[in-house]
């Protein structure tokens, strides 16, 4: 057996840390939000600038990852008591709170800093997303009211608005509509999630729509928000000038979202709930691709 050199040991240690940090940034959620930001930029169909696109991707990735780590840092006590999340590196002690806080702050500052350097207005929108997510949603409202989801949604709508702002240089109606589409899409994702993991949220004493208003009302809210999300996406698509064929495809995918949303109201079951939860993510990703073409 050969002893490893100090350099190899150091490299292995760095790799191990990175492997621990990856769950802290919720790669799937961050990727989806990043995709909305890039779609917002590409939706303007301005002459493509690879460097700007790269800048948007990097700054949004850093800012979204930073805010996610900060959320996880603050919510580590909740994560520790929830079945779904108790194995997260912060909750089970593999990453110390100080280390996570430092990582979250560094990523956030780098992300917002790069964004401000690229364009002050773009930077402001990126900062607003981070502020709504970390301060308003996580620190202030999440443990107090189920309506915190609205602010979580507003924050989720910021990357797409930011991307659009970077391309057009202003906050326009299309950007607001796209942002609204994400805001109203979020309940189809998060509320189905809070129904699926109802017991988990109860044990952590986090107020959710199902625990406050019951499952029936929650399902109605999901259906209503799906209608508004699909409508906002459709109107934005028309205003952007998406080709007729791609609009047709968006309509088909939106119809799928609406059918599943109504199925949760009229034929509620765990299976329908789960399919809506998964389909909603696919819907958002597909819509973002169609807006970018």
């Amino acid at each position, binding site marked *: 057996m050969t002893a490893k050199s100090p350099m190899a040991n150091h490299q292995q240690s760095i790799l191990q840390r990175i492997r621990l940090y990856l769950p802290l940034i919720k790669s799937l959620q961050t990727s989806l939000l990043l995709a909305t930001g890039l779609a917002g930029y590409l939706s303007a169909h301005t002459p493509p600038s690879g460097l700007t696109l790269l800048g948007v991707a990097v700054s949004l990735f850093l800012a979204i990852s930073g805010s996610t780590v900060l959320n996880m840092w603050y919510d580590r006590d909740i994560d520790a008591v929830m079945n779904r999340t108790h194995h997260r590196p912060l909750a089970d002690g593999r990453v110390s709170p100080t280390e996570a806080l430092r990582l979250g702050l560094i990523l956030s500052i780098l992300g917002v800093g790069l964004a401000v350097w690229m364009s002050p207005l773009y930077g402001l929108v990126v900062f607003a997303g981070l502020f709504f997510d970390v301060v308003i949603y996580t620190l202030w409202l999440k443990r107090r009211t189920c309506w915190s989801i609205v602010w979580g949604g507003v924050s989720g709508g910021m990357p797409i608005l930011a991307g659009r702002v970077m391309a057009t240089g202003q906050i326009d109606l299309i950007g607001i509509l796209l942002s609204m589409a994400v805001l109203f899409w979020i309940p189809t994702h998060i509320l189905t999630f809070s129904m699926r993991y109802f017991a988990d949220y109860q044990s952590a004493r986090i107020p959710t729509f199902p625990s406050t208003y019951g499952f029936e009302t929650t399902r109605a809210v999901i259906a209503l928000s799906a209608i508004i999300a699909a409508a906002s996406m459709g109107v934005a698509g028309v205003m952007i000038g998406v080709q007729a*064929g*791609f609009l047709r*495809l968006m*309509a088909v995918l939106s*119809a*799928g979202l609406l059918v599943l949303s109504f199925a949760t109201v009229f034929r509620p079951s765990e299976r329908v709930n789960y*399919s809506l939860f*998964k*389909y909603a993510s696919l819907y958002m990703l597909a819509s973002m691709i169609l807006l970018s073409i």
Partner: protein
Amino acid sequence: MKTSPLSRLLLLLTALLAAWQVAIGIEGLERVPVLAYTVGFGILLVACLLLIILGLEVLESPVVVIVSTVIPLSLSLGLVWEHLTSWRTAYLTFVLAGFLAILVTRALPFKGRLPVIVLAVVHGISGMVIFLLPSVLAAQGTTRAGFALVGLGGALIGLGGLLLSFLKAGRPILPRETILRILPALLLLMTATFVAGFMLA
């Protein structure tokens, strides 16, 4: 039965082909065929996504019978509207009445064989239209020979429909596992022949 990665891949390819057909493959047609094909391929697209998400067991849901009827009905309506102009109104009436009849006989507790007869008639006629119309038009030289592929797609949709109907009726032609295993490949082949047929028409 767990859905294999290969089945998921085949379903994903089917969904992408259906999406392509909705977005690009039917450009330039009249409004009614565009609407009809969008409904047909759109349902196929969403159904494939749900099969990927939930697995092939979802085929046992009673809604599948109704949804799977809309695909041949809408595709056949598009074909008739495009190629048999004098039959447009009559066929549109058949499509609407047929869909309504299936909806009613499935939603209400009918006794006897009426629901099965209605399903067989509506499925049978629309399936024959999809199979025969493109085949005859291609054979006559009215359209290019490649359009016959749509007819082949019609035959495949009929085969898939038969396998599923007998399975749901409790008298499967093939073992359940075999049907569920070949279905994704059948769906992909069917969609590919439709897309190729429309492209080559």
